[in-house]
Protein backbone atom coordinates (compact mmCIF):
# COMPACT_ATOMS: atom_id res chain seq x y z
CA UNK A 1 0.00 0.00 0.00
CA UNK A 2 2.97 2.25 0.54
CA UNK A 3 3.87 2.17 -3.08
CA UNK A 4 0.82 1.10 -5.04
CA UNK A 5 -0.48 4.46 -6.14
CA UNK A 6 -3.61 4.68 -8.19
CA UNK A 7 -3.87 8.39 -8.76
CA UNK A 8 -2.73 8.32 -12.36
CA UNK A 9 -5.74 6.37 -13.52
CA UNK A 10 -8.23 9.20 -13.22
CA UNK A 11 -5.77 11.40 -15.08
CA UNK A 12 -6.17 8.95 -17.94
CA UNK A 13 -9.94 9.29 -17.63
CA UNK A 14 -9.69 13.07 -17.79
CA UNK A 15 -7.41 12.84 -20.79
CA UNK A 16 -10.05 10.77 -22.58
CA UNK A 17 -12.75 13.22 -21.53
CA UNK A 18 -10.74 16.15 -22.92
CA UNK A 19 -10.37 14.35 -26.23
CA UNK A 20 -14.08 13.66 -26.27
CA UNK A 21 -15.04 17.28 -25.62
CA UNK A 22 -12.68 18.67 -28.25
CA UNK A 23 -13.55 16.08 -30.90
CA UNK A 24 -17.25 15.61 -30.33
CA UNK A 25 -18.28 19.04 -29.16
CA UNK A 26 -15.71 21.31 -30.74
CA UNK A 27 -14.94 23.10 -27.50
CA UNK A 28 -11.63 23.57 -25.79
CA UNK A 29 -10.80 21.21 -22.99
CA UNK A 30 -7.68 21.37 -20.89
CA UNK A 31 -6.44 18.71 -18.53
CA UNK A 32 -6.13 20.65 -15.30
CA UNK A 33 -2.58 20.73 -13.94
CA UNK A 34 -2.36 18.88 -10.67
CA UNK A 35 1.36 18.88 -9.92
CA UNK A 36 3.09 21.71 -8.11
CA UNK A 37 4.94 24.21 -10.26
CA UNK A 38 6.43 26.11 -7.34
CA UNK A 39 6.49 25.23 -3.66
CA UNK A 40 3.91 22.61 -2.83
CA UNK A 41 0.95 24.31 -4.49
CA UNK A 42 -0.43 23.12 -7.81
CA UNK A 43 -1.58 25.81 -10.24
CA UNK A 44 -5.11 24.58 -9.67
CA UNK A 45 -6.55 22.90 -6.61
CA UNK A 46 -8.13 19.54 -7.41
CA UNK A 47 -9.55 19.55 -3.89
CA UNK A 48 -11.38 22.80 -4.39
CA UNK A 49 -12.60 21.64 -7.79
CA UNK A 50 -13.90 18.41 -6.26
CA UNK A 51 -15.74 20.28 -3.51
CA UNK A 52 -17.27 22.78 -5.93
CA UNK A 53 -18.33 19.98 -8.25
CA UNK A 54 -20.17 18.27 -5.40
CA UNK A 55 -18.00 15.20 -5.18
CA UNK A 56 -17.22 15.53 -1.50
CA UNK A 57 -16.27 17.79 1.35
CA UNK A 58 -13.11 18.51 3.30
CA UNK A 59 -12.44 16.30 6.26
CA UNK A 60 -10.70 16.54 9.58
CA UNK A 61 -8.17 14.08 8.20
CA UNK A 62 -5.61 16.23 6.44
CA UNK A 63 -8.36 18.09 4.59
CA UNK A 64 -8.80 15.06 2.36
CA UNK A 65 -11.97 15.39 0.32
CA UNK A 66 -14.30 12.58 1.31
CA UNK A 67 -16.89 11.28 -1.08
CA UNK A 68 -20.10 10.40 0.79
CA UNK A 69 -20.07 6.80 -0.42
CA UNK A 70 -16.47 5.98 -1.20
CA UNK A 71 -14.60 8.17 1.25
CA UNK A 72 -11.05 8.69 -0.02
CA UNK A 73 -10.84 9.13 -3.78
CA UNK A 74 -8.19 10.62 -6.02
CA UNK A 75 -9.30 13.44 -8.25
CA UNK A 76 -8.38 14.87 -11.59
CA UNK A 77 -10.08 17.75 -13.36
CA UNK A 78 -10.44 19.34 -16.74
CA UNK A 79 -11.21 22.93 -17.64
CA UNK A 80 -13.40 23.48 -20.64
CA UNK A 81 -15.18 26.14 -22.64
CA UNK A 82 -18.11 23.75 -23.08
CA UNK A 83 -21.11 25.18 -21.30
CA UNK A 84 -21.92 22.18 -19.15
CA UNK A 85 -24.53 22.63 -16.46
CA UNK A 86 -22.66 22.94 -13.15
CA UNK A 87 -23.16 20.58 -10.27
CA UNK A 88 -23.35 22.06 -6.82
CA UNK A 89 -21.40 21.51 -3.62
CA UNK A 90 -22.91 18.90 -1.33
CA UNK A 91 -25.53 20.23 1.03
CA UNK A 92 -24.44 17.91 3.84
CA UNK A 93 -20.89 17.67 5.07
CA UNK A 94 -19.47 14.20 4.63
CA UNK A 95 -17.15 14.72 7.58
CA UNK A 96 -17.75 14.23 10.41
CA UNK A 97 -19.87 11.14 9.92
CA UNK A 98 -22.40 10.11 12.53
CA UNK A 99 -20.15 7.60 14.33
CA UNK A 100 -17.45 10.26 14.51
CA UNK A 101 -19.86 12.75 16.07
CA UNK A 102 -20.88 10.15 18.62
CA UNK A 103 -17.27 9.34 19.39
CA UNK A 104 -16.45 13.03 19.72
CA UNK A 105 -19.31 13.57 22.14
CA UNK A 106 -18.11 10.74 24.32
CA UNK A 107 -14.34 10.99 24.02
CA UNK A 108 -13.62 14.43 22.60
CA UNK A 109 -11.89 12.99 19.57
CA UNK A 110 -12.63 11.23 16.30
CA UNK A 111 -11.03 8.11 14.77
CA UNK A 112 -8.69 10.11 12.53
CA UNK A 113 -7.69 12.57 15.24
CA UNK A 114 -7.10 9.69 17.64
CA UNK A 115 -4.91 7.88 15.13
CA UNK A 116 -2.62 10.86 14.57
CA UNK A 117 -3.01 13.41 17.39
CA UNK A 118 -1.07 16.62 17.03
CA UNK A 119 -0.42 16.71 20.76
CA UNK A 120 1.38 13.38 20.62
CA UNK A 121 3.60 13.95 17.66
CA UNK A 122 0.87 13.48 15.08
CA UNK A 123 -0.48 15.70 12.36
CA UNK A 124 -4.15 16.28 13.13
CA UNK A 125 -6.28 18.25 15.52
CA UNK A 126 -9.81 19.50 15.37
CA UNK A 127 -13.06 20.23 17.13
CA UNK A 128 -16.75 19.85 16.45
CA UNK A 129 -19.39 22.37 17.42
CA UNK A 130 -22.70 21.68 19.13
CA UNK A 131 -24.31 20.88 15.81
CA UNK A 132 -21.71 18.24 15.07
CA UNK A 133 -19.94 20.27 12.42
CA UNK A 134 -16.23 20.99 12.14
CA UNK A 135 -15.51 24.18 14.05
CA UNK A 136 -11.74 23.92 14.06
CA UNK A 137 -9.34 21.89 12.02
CA UNK A 138 -5.56 21.69 12.17
CA UNK A 139 -3.27 19.81 9.84
CA UNK A 140 0.53 19.78 10.07
CA UNK A 141 1.30 19.31 6.41
CA UNK A 142 5.06 19.33 6.77
CA UNK A 143 5.01 16.62 9.39
CA UNK A 144 2.50 14.58 7.42
CA UNK A 145 4.50 14.89 4.20
CA UNK A 146 7.68 13.71 5.90
CA UNK A 147 5.83 10.57 7.02
CA UNK A 148 3.40 9.89 4.26
CA UNK A 149 5.86 10.41 1.46
CA UNK A 150 9.03 8.80 2.67
CA UNK A 151 9.57 7.37 -0.75
CA UNK A 152 9.22 9.57 -3.78
CA UNK A 153 10.75 12.82 -4.93
CA UNK A 154 11.22 14.10 -1.40
CA UNK A 155 13.15 11.04 -0.30
CA UNK A 156 15.37 11.21 -3.36
CA UNK A 157 16.19 14.82 -2.59
CA UNK A 158 16.89 13.95 1.02
CA UNK A 159 19.06 10.99 0.09
CA UNK A 160 20.96 13.02 -2.50
CA UNK A 161 21.78 15.64 0.10
CA UNK A 162 23.20 12.91 2.32
CA UNK A 163 24.97 11.07 -0.49
CA UNK A 164 26.61 14.16 -1.94
CA UNK A 165 27.71 15.27 1.52
CA UNK A 166 29.35 11.91 2.24
CA UNK A 167 33.08 12.14 1.66
CA UNK A 168 33.94 8.48 2.08
CA UNK A 169 33.69 6.64 -1.23
CA UNK A 170 32.76 3.28 0.27
CA UNK A 171 30.03 4.72 2.46
CA UNK A 172 28.72 6.75 -0.47
CA UNK A 173 28.57 3.63 -2.57
CA UNK A 174 26.59 1.75 0.07
CA UNK A 175 24.13 4.65 0.29
CA UNK A 176 23.66 4.76 -3.47
CA UNK A 177 22.91 1.05 -3.70
CA UNK A 178 20.91 0.83 -0.46
CA UNK A 179 17.38 -0.55 -0.39
CA UNK A 180 16.11 2.86 0.65
CA UNK A 181 17.62 4.75 -2.28
CA UNK A 182 16.74 1.99 -4.73
CA UNK A 183 13.13 2.02 -3.54
CA UNK A 184 13.06 5.79 -3.72
CA UNK A 185 14.18 5.65 -7.32
CA UNK A 186 11.64 2.92 -7.97
CA UNK A 187 8.92 5.18 -6.63
CA UNK A 188 9.96 7.82 -9.10
CA UNK A 189 10.00 5.46 -12.02
CA UNK A 190 8.00 2.25 -11.74
CA UNK A 191 5.25 3.64 -9.61
CA UNK A 192 5.66 6.98 -11.35
CA UNK A 193 3.61 8.96 -9.01
CA UNK A 194 3.65 10.54 -5.65
CA UNK A 195 3.25 7.57 -3.37
CA UNK A 196 2.10 7.67 0.21
CA UNK A 197 3.26 5.54 3.09
CA UNK A 198 0.86 6.24 5.89
CA UNK A 199 -2.91 6.11 5.20
CA UNK A 200 -3.68 5.60 8.92
CA UNK A 201 -6.19 8.46 9.17
CA UNK A 202 -8.02 6.98 6.21
CA UNK A 203 -7.77 3.43 7.48
CA UNK A 204 -9.90 4.31 10.51
CA UNK A 205 -12.31 6.66 8.73
CA UNK A 206 -15.87 5.31 8.78
CA UNK A 207 -16.74 7.06 5.51
CA UNK A 208 -16.45 4.50 2.74
CA UNK A 209 -15.62 1.77 5.25
CA UNK A 210 -18.10 -0.63 3.66
CA UNK A 211 -16.25 -0.22 0.37
CA UNK A 212 -13.01 -1.29 2.04
CA UNK A 213 -14.45 -4.27 3.89
CA UNK A 214 -14.75 -7.21 1.57
CA UNK A 215 -14.69 -10.95 1.90
Amino acid at each position, binding site marked *: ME*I*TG*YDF*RENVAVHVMCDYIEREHGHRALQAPSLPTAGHNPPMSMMLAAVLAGLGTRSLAANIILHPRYGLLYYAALVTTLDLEPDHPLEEDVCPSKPCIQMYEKLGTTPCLASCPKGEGGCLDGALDEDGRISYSYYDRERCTSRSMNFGIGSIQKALVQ*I*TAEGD*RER*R*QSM*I*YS*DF*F*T*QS*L*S*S*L*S*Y*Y*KESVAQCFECMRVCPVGMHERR*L*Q
Partner: protein
Amino acid sequence: MTVSAAAARDRLAAMVERGGALAWGVADADAFDEAPEGFRPADLLPGARRVVVVGGSPPRAADWASPVHEHLETMGTSDRINSLGLKTAKFIEAEFGYYALFVPPGVRRGNRPFLSVALAAELAGCGSRSLAGPVLHPEYGLLFYSAVITTYPFPLTPPLAEPACPAPACVDMWEAEGETPCTRVCPLGDGGCLDGRIEDGRLVERRYDAARCTSRVYTHWIPGFQKGLELVLDQDDPEARKMVLYSSHFTKTLWSMTYAAQSQGQCWECMRVCPVGAEFRDKA
Protein backbone atom coordinates in the same frame (compact mmCIF):
# COMPACT_ATOMS: atom_id res chain seq x y z
CA MET B 1 -26.16 -11.46 -6.36
CA THR B 2 -24.06 -14.53 -5.75
CA VAL B 3 -22.34 -16.06 -8.75
CA SER B 4 -20.72 -19.44 -8.99
CA ALA B 5 -16.96 -19.62 -9.09
CA ALA B 6 -17.18 -20.95 -12.65
CA ALA B 7 -19.40 -18.05 -13.75
CA ALA B 8 -17.06 -15.64 -12.02
CA ARG B 9 -14.16 -17.19 -13.90
CA ASP B 10 -15.97 -16.63 -17.21
CA ARG B 11 -16.61 -13.00 -16.35
CA LEU B 12 -13.00 -12.54 -15.35
CA ALA B 13 -11.88 -14.18 -18.59
CA ALA B 14 -14.04 -11.84 -20.65
CA MET B 15 -12.68 -8.81 -18.82
CA VAL B 16 -8.98 -9.64 -19.05
CA GLU B 17 -9.20 -10.75 -22.66
CA ARG B 18 -11.04 -7.57 -23.57
CA GLY B 19 -8.30 -5.71 -21.70
CA GLY B 20 -5.61 -7.20 -23.91
CA ALA B 21 -4.41 -10.29 -22.06
CA LEU B 22 -2.92 -12.85 -24.42
CA ALA B 23 -2.68 -15.33 -21.58
CA TRP B 24 -4.10 -15.56 -18.11
CA GLY B 25 -4.50 -18.10 -15.35
CA VAL B 26 -5.21 -18.68 -11.69
CA ALA B 27 -2.66 -20.07 -9.24
CA ASP B 28 -3.25 -21.46 -5.78
CA ALA B 29 -1.99 -18.94 -3.23
CA ASP B 30 -0.73 -21.80 -1.07
CA ALA B 31 1.48 -23.18 -3.82
CA PHE B 32 4.27 -20.61 -3.51
CA ASP B 33 6.44 -22.81 -1.30
CA GLU B 34 9.62 -22.04 -3.17
CA ALA B 35 9.22 -18.31 -2.50
CA PRO B 36 10.94 -17.14 0.69
CA GLU B 37 8.91 -16.30 3.74
CA GLY B 38 7.63 -12.76 3.59
CA PHE B 39 7.30 -12.90 -0.16
CA ARG B 40 4.33 -15.24 -0.50
CA PRO B 41 0.77 -14.26 -1.37
CA ALA B 42 -0.57 -14.47 2.19
CA ASP B 43 2.25 -12.22 3.37
CA LEU B 44 0.86 -9.51 1.13
CA LEU B 45 -2.82 -10.25 1.62
CA PRO B 46 -3.98 -12.17 4.71
CA GLY B 47 -6.48 -14.83 3.72
CA ALA B 48 -5.15 -14.98 0.16
CA ARG B 49 -6.56 -17.91 -1.78
CA ARG B 50 -5.67 -17.31 -5.41
CA VAL B 51 -3.26 -15.40 -7.58
CA VAL B 52 -4.67 -14.24 -10.89
CA VAL B 53 -2.02 -13.72 -13.54
CA VAL B 54 -2.48 -11.80 -16.76
CA GLY B 55 0.10 -11.85 -19.54
CA GLY B 56 0.56 -9.87 -22.70
CA SER B 57 2.02 -6.64 -24.09
CA PRO B 58 5.18 -8.12 -25.62
CA PRO B 59 7.19 -5.96 -28.00
CA ARG B 60 5.46 -5.90 -31.39
CA ALA B 61 6.92 -7.46 -34.49
CA ALA B 62 7.90 -4.00 -35.71
CA ASP B 63 9.79 -3.35 -32.47
CA TRP B 64 11.82 -6.50 -33.08
CA ALA B 65 12.43 -5.51 -36.70
CA SER B 66 13.67 -2.00 -36.02
CA PRO B 67 17.32 -1.52 -36.97
CA VAL B 68 17.57 1.28 -34.41
CA HIS B 69 18.58 -0.69 -31.37
CA GLU B 70 17.72 2.16 -29.05
CA HIS B 71 14.11 1.73 -30.07
CA LEU B 72 13.64 -1.70 -28.54
CA GLU B 73 15.82 -0.64 -25.66
CA THR B 74 13.45 2.10 -24.63
CA MET B 75 10.10 1.11 -26.10
CA GLY B 76 8.89 -0.59 -22.95
CA THR B 77 5.51 -2.21 -23.26
CA SER B 78 5.31 -3.91 -19.89
CA ASP B 79 3.51 -0.93 -18.39
CA ARG B 80 0.37 -1.86 -20.26
CA ILE B 81 0.12 -5.22 -18.57
CA ASN B 82 0.44 -3.53 -15.20
CA SER B 83 -2.51 -1.32 -16.10
CA LEU B 84 -4.48 -4.45 -16.83
CA GLY B 85 -3.37 -5.94 -13.52
CA LEU B 86 -4.68 -2.89 -11.69
CA LYS B 87 -7.91 -3.03 -13.64
CA THR B 88 -8.28 -6.73 -12.84
CA ALA B 89 -7.90 -6.04 -9.12
CA LYS B 90 -10.53 -3.34 -9.26
CA PHE B 91 -12.82 -5.62 -11.25
CA ILE B 92 -12.62 -8.46 -8.73
CA GLU B 93 -13.35 -6.19 -5.78
CA ALA B 94 -16.17 -4.35 -7.52
CA GLU B 95 -17.82 -7.36 -9.16
CA PHE B 96 -17.41 -10.07 -6.56
CA GLY B 97 -16.87 -8.23 -3.30
CA TYR B 98 -13.61 -10.00 -2.46
CA TYR B 99 -10.22 -8.51 -1.72
CA ALA B 100 -7.92 -8.23 -4.69
CA LEU B 101 -4.41 -6.85 -4.34
CA PHE B 102 -2.40 -5.77 -7.35
CA VAL B 103 1.18 -6.93 -6.91
CA PRO B 104 3.38 -3.85 -7.36
CA PRO B 105 5.81 -4.27 -10.23
CA GLY B 106 8.84 -2.88 -8.42
CA VAL B 107 11.10 -4.31 -5.76
CA ARG B 108 10.86 -4.53 -2.02
CA ARG B 109 13.81 -5.22 0.24
CA GLY B 110 17.07 -6.46 -1.19
CA ASN B 111 16.07 -5.86 -4.79
CA ARG B 112 13.52 -8.67 -4.44
CA PRO B 113 10.04 -8.25 -5.93
CA PHE B 114 7.04 -8.23 -3.61
CA LEU B 115 5.97 -11.53 -5.15
CA SER B 116 7.65 -13.48 -7.90
CA VAL B 117 5.37 -12.82 -10.85
CA ALA B 118 7.38 -15.34 -12.86
CA LEU B 119 6.58 -18.06 -10.32
CA ALA B 120 2.96 -16.95 -10.28
CA ALA B 121 2.80 -17.17 -14.08
CA GLU B 122 4.21 -20.69 -13.99
CA LEU B 123 1.88 -21.86 -11.26
CA ALA B 124 -1.08 -20.33 -13.11
CA GLY B 125 -0.19 -22.29 -16.22
CA CYS B 126 0.67 -19.28 -18.35
CA GLY B 127 4.03 -20.65 -19.31
CA SER B 128 7.16 -22.33 -18.07
CA ARG B 129 10.64 -21.17 -17.21
CA SER B 130 13.09 -21.23 -20.04
CA LEU B 131 16.78 -21.77 -20.46
CA ALA B 132 16.95 -18.10 -21.26
CA GLY B 133 15.22 -17.11 -18.04
CA PRO B 134 11.83 -15.60 -18.90
CA VAL B 135 8.64 -17.58 -18.48
CA LEU B 136 7.67 -18.61 -22.00
CA HIS B 137 4.09 -18.97 -23.10
CA PRO B 138 3.83 -22.03 -25.35
CA GLU B 139 2.30 -20.03 -28.18
CA TYR B 140 3.49 -16.44 -27.76
CA GLY B 141 6.83 -16.98 -26.09
CA LEU B 142 7.96 -13.90 -24.18
CA LEU B 143 5.12 -12.06 -22.48
CA PHE B 144 5.02 -9.57 -19.65
CA TYR B 145 2.98 -10.55 -16.63
CA SER B 146 1.07 -8.89 -13.86
CA ALA B 147 -0.37 -10.62 -10.80
CA VAL B 148 -3.32 -10.00 -8.50
CA ILE B 149 -3.68 -11.75 -5.16
CA THR B 150 -7.27 -12.36 -4.14
CA THR B 151 -9.44 -13.97 -1.51
CA TYR B 152 -11.91 -15.04 -4.18
CA PRO B 153 -11.73 -18.82 -4.81
CA PHE B 154 -11.56 -18.79 -8.60
CA PRO B 155 -11.15 -22.26 -10.13
CA LEU B 156 -7.47 -23.05 -10.56
CA THR B 157 -5.64 -23.40 -13.83
CA PRO B 158 -2.88 -26.00 -13.46
CA PRO B 159 0.75 -25.48 -14.45
CA LEU B 160 1.58 -26.56 -17.99
CA ALA B 161 1.82 -30.33 -18.45
CA GLU B 162 4.40 -29.84 -21.18
CA PRO B 163 7.01 -27.12 -20.71
CA ALA B 164 7.29 -24.50 -23.44
CA CYS B 165 11.10 -24.74 -23.31
CA PRO B 166 12.97 -26.41 -24.89
CA ALA B 167 11.09 -26.14 -28.16
CA PRO B 168 11.42 -29.10 -30.58
CA ALA B 169 13.77 -27.04 -32.75
CA CYS B 170 16.00 -26.40 -29.75
CA VAL B 171 16.02 -30.07 -28.81
CA ASP B 172 17.13 -30.90 -32.36
CA MET B 173 19.86 -28.29 -32.18
CA TRP B 174 20.99 -29.54 -28.78
CA GLU B 175 21.24 -33.10 -30.04
CA ALA B 176 23.20 -31.98 -33.10
CA GLU B 177 25.40 -29.28 -31.59
CA GLY B 178 25.16 -29.43 -27.79
CA GLU B 179 23.68 -25.98 -27.50
CA THR B 180 20.47 -24.08 -28.12
CA PRO B 181 19.86 -20.73 -29.83
CA CYS B 182 19.76 -18.86 -26.52
CA THR B 183 22.83 -20.50 -24.99
CA ARG B 184 24.71 -19.93 -28.20
CA VAL B 185 23.88 -16.24 -28.34
CA CYS B 186 24.92 -15.62 -24.73
CA PRO B 187 27.18 -18.48 -23.59
CA LEU B 188 28.16 -18.46 -19.94
CA GLY B 189 31.56 -19.87 -20.77
CA ASP B 190 32.29 -17.09 -23.20
CA GLY B 191 31.42 -14.03 -21.18
CA GLY B 192 27.66 -14.54 -21.48
CA CYS B 193 24.90 -15.36 -19.03
CA LEU B 194 23.37 -18.70 -20.03
CA ASP B 195 24.18 -22.37 -19.86
CA GLY B 196 22.15 -25.53 -19.43
CA ARG B 197 21.64 -29.14 -20.29
CA ILE B 198 18.88 -31.04 -22.02
CA GLU B 199 18.22 -34.74 -21.52
CA ASP B 200 15.48 -36.71 -23.24
CA GLY B 201 14.14 -33.47 -24.65
CA ARG B 202 13.75 -31.92 -21.22
CA LEU B 203 15.63 -29.14 -19.54
CA VAL B 204 17.48 -30.77 -16.64
CA GLU B 205 19.98 -28.10 -15.71
CA ARG B 206 20.03 -24.38 -16.08
CA ARG B 207 22.78 -21.94 -15.18
CA TYR B 208 22.10 -18.25 -15.33
CA ASP B 209 24.38 -15.42 -14.26
CA ALA B 210 21.71 -13.02 -13.04
CA ALA B 211 24.18 -10.36 -11.93
CA ARG B 212 25.93 -10.31 -15.28
CA CYS B 213 22.63 -10.27 -17.14
CA THR B 214 21.27 -7.42 -15.01
CA SER B 215 24.37 -5.35 -15.62
CA ARG B 216 23.75 -5.70 -19.35
CA VAL B 217 19.98 -5.71 -19.51
CA TYR B 218 19.51 -2.75 -17.22
CA THR B 219 22.23 -0.46 -18.42
CA HIS B 220 19.80 2.41 -18.13
CA TRP B 221 16.96 2.86 -15.66
CA ILE B 222 17.55 2.65 -11.90
CA PRO B 223 20.79 0.61 -11.91
CA GLY B 224 22.13 2.91 -14.63
CA PHE B 225 21.27 5.96 -12.56
CA GLN B 226 22.95 4.56 -9.47
CA LYS B 227 26.05 3.69 -11.43
CA GLY B 228 26.10 7.10 -13.08
CA LEU B 229 25.62 8.89 -9.79
CA GLU B 230 28.46 6.94 -8.23
CA LEU B 231 30.67 7.85 -11.15
CA VAL B 232 29.73 11.53 -10.91
CA LEU B 233 30.51 11.73 -7.23
CA ASP B 234 33.82 9.95 -7.69
CA GLN B 235 35.00 12.77 -9.94
CA ASP B 236 36.98 15.50 -8.24
CA ASP B 237 36.99 17.71 -11.29
CA PRO B 238 33.74 19.73 -11.67
CA GLU B 239 34.13 19.68 -15.45
CA ALA B 240 34.33 15.89 -15.44
CA ARG B 241 31.24 15.70 -13.24
CA LYS B 242 29.39 17.99 -15.59
CA MET B 243 30.40 15.86 -18.54
CA VAL B 244 29.00 12.70 -16.93
CA LEU B 245 25.81 14.41 -15.82
CA TYR B 246 25.09 15.71 -19.32
CA SER B 247 26.28 12.60 -21.10
CA SER B 248 24.02 10.66 -23.43
CA HIS B 249 24.09 7.75 -21.04
CA PHE B 250 22.99 9.69 -17.99
CA THR B 251 20.41 11.67 -19.95
CA LYS B 252 18.94 8.50 -21.38
CA THR B 253 18.90 6.96 -17.94
CA LEU B 254 16.85 9.84 -16.61
CA TRP B 255 14.46 9.56 -19.53
CA SER B 256 14.07 5.85 -18.95
CA MET B 257 13.35 6.36 -15.26
CA THR B 258 10.81 9.08 -15.65
CA TYR B 259 9.00 9.24 -18.95
CA ALA B 260 9.20 5.57 -19.83
CA ALA B 261 8.83 4.71 -16.16
CA GLN B 262 9.38 1.05 -16.33
CA SER B 263 11.89 -1.68 -16.22
CA GLN B 264 13.49 -1.56 -19.59
CA GLY B 265 15.74 -4.12 -21.11
CA GLN B 266 18.63 -3.33 -23.39
CA CYS B 267 19.59 -6.76 -24.56
CA TRP B 268 16.81 -9.09 -25.67
CA GLU B 269 19.18 -11.24 -27.70
CA CYS B 270 18.25 -14.54 -26.05
CA MET B 271 14.61 -13.80 -26.83
CA ARG B 272 15.33 -12.61 -30.34
CA VAL B 273 16.60 -16.07 -31.30
CA CYS B 274 14.05 -18.10 -29.33
CA PRO B 275 11.82 -20.19 -31.60
CA VAL B 276 8.90 -20.07 -29.15
CA GLY B 277 6.58 -17.34 -30.37
CA ALA B 278 8.90 -16.51 -33.27
CA GLU B 279 5.98 -16.26 -35.68
CA PHE B 280 4.59 -13.34 -33.68
CA ARG B 281 7.86 -11.45 -33.97
CA ASP B 282 7.89 -11.69 -37.72
CA LYS B 283 5.48 -9.86 -40.03
CA ALA B 284 5.46 -8.95 -43.66
